């Protein structure tokens, strides 16, 4: 499992594309928004939580098809399926590797971009915390979607369509958590729901993803 994790991380770092791409995309979205909306600090500060969450979500979506597609093409996935570790562990590890290469950098970059968007000070803590605890759910759900579409030649559009509605609850609770943090309202409810979704995804979706991969490799 550690070997698989290290392998995925090394591939993501050395092959380029996956690692930098989503981060660059996040950066572009956040920098372009003020040009579209206008430079007034008040407006930007009010929409900043939503923009940052939507940007992180889209950046995450961008790299999803890499989770299993390349391994499926060169046959690694078949080897992993017959390996002594259970396929559920493989899918969970893949999702973890995806999170370490997209979710984690996005979380670390978000506060910096928050400054650009004039995010009010109390928002920074909640932004970092909600992204840190919400993006694992995005990676796990994405891994499930990628597992469903791994056998398809051009599954990219389909993958986005499948994953989009699954991402909505995470987005609602994540962005709302930051918004309430900015306005000084109690954040417990959306925060706990967000963590609940993440934990639930980690508990259930590796099994669903593994089942989908087994079907696809049949």
């Amino acid at each position, binding site marked *: 499992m550690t070997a698989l994790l290290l392998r995925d991380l090394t591939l993501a770092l050395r092959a380029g594309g996956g690692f930098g791409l989503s981060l660059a995309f996040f950066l572009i979205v956040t920098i372009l928004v003020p040009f579209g909306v206008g430079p007034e600090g008040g407006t930007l500060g009010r929409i900043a939580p939503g923009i940052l969450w939507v940007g992180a979500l889209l950046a995450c979506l961008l790299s999803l098809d890499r989770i299993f597609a390349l391994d499926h093409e060169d046959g690694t996935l078949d080897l992993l399926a017959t390996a002594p570790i259970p396929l559920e562990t493989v899918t969970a590890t893949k999702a973890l590797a995806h999170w370490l290469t997209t979710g984690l950098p996005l979380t670390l970059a978000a506060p910096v971009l928050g400054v650009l968007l004039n995010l009010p000070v109390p928002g920074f803590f909640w932004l970092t915390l909600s992204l840190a605890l919400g993006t694992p759910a995005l990676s796990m759900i994405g891994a*499930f979607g990628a597992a*469903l*579409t791994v*056998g*398809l030649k051009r*599954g990219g559009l*389909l993958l986005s*369509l*499948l994953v*989009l*509605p*699954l991402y*909505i*609850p995470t987005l*609602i*609770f994540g962005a*709302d958590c930051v918004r309430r943090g900015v306005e000084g309202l109690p954040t417990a*409810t*959306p925060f706990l*729901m967000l963590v609940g*979704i993440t934990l639930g995804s980690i508990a*259930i*979706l590796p099994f*669903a993803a593994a*089942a*989908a991969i087994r*079907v*696809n490799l*049949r």
Partner: protein
Amino acid sequence: MSIWEYANPKKFMQTSAWALPWVTGLAVVTLVAGLIWGFFFTPDDFRMGSTVKIIYIHVPAAIMATGTWFMMLAASLVWLIRRHHVSVLAAKAAAPIGTTMTLIGLFTGAIWGQPMWGTWWAWDPRLTAFLILFLFYLGYIALWEAIEDPDTAADLTSVLCLVGSVFAVISRYAVLFWNQGLHQGSSLSLDQEEHVADVYAWPLWVSIIGFGLLFVSLVLIRTRTEIRKRRLRALEARERMA
């Protein structure tokens, strides 16, 4: 005699061929009766005028839109557990009907909302939940279409339906939490406070039954078509082998 007998396609075809004219006939009768009763023989509402009559399409379509997903969930579970082909074909057949019902619900809602709320669309919990449901239907149908092998497609769509159901429920409560909207409470709740007046409720019940029967009839027709498609595919395969 158990319900699993109908998992046999032959038995299913026989029974559905017998039942189809009756169900369809009943659906037509109840729909025509319910809609005519609702449109022409109920008084105008004192605030909403005649737009209140959209209720006879809007509410049944909305009920069928969510009901169809539950039917697909049950059918997918039966497929995953007992591997009955008729079951998963019924789920496949039901999906476009559910999509259409969702669209009818959204469109009639927009037409109703424009004069009543002054807007075609609002990010109200119910409306948003229906939009998300619509996306789920689209994803489900697209996945069916994208995969060549029928059994692989059946397995993957069933897994998607299961996971999707969980997330659909979470979305329903998430949007409720997110925004308290314009949509009224439930029109047919047993709570007399929110209930519509009896004069509107009776034709409404008739049209709901009519929509339900229409749904059963359409699912039967479409499932029969899917079974015939499978048979054709099997025949072609046999011919190629020979």
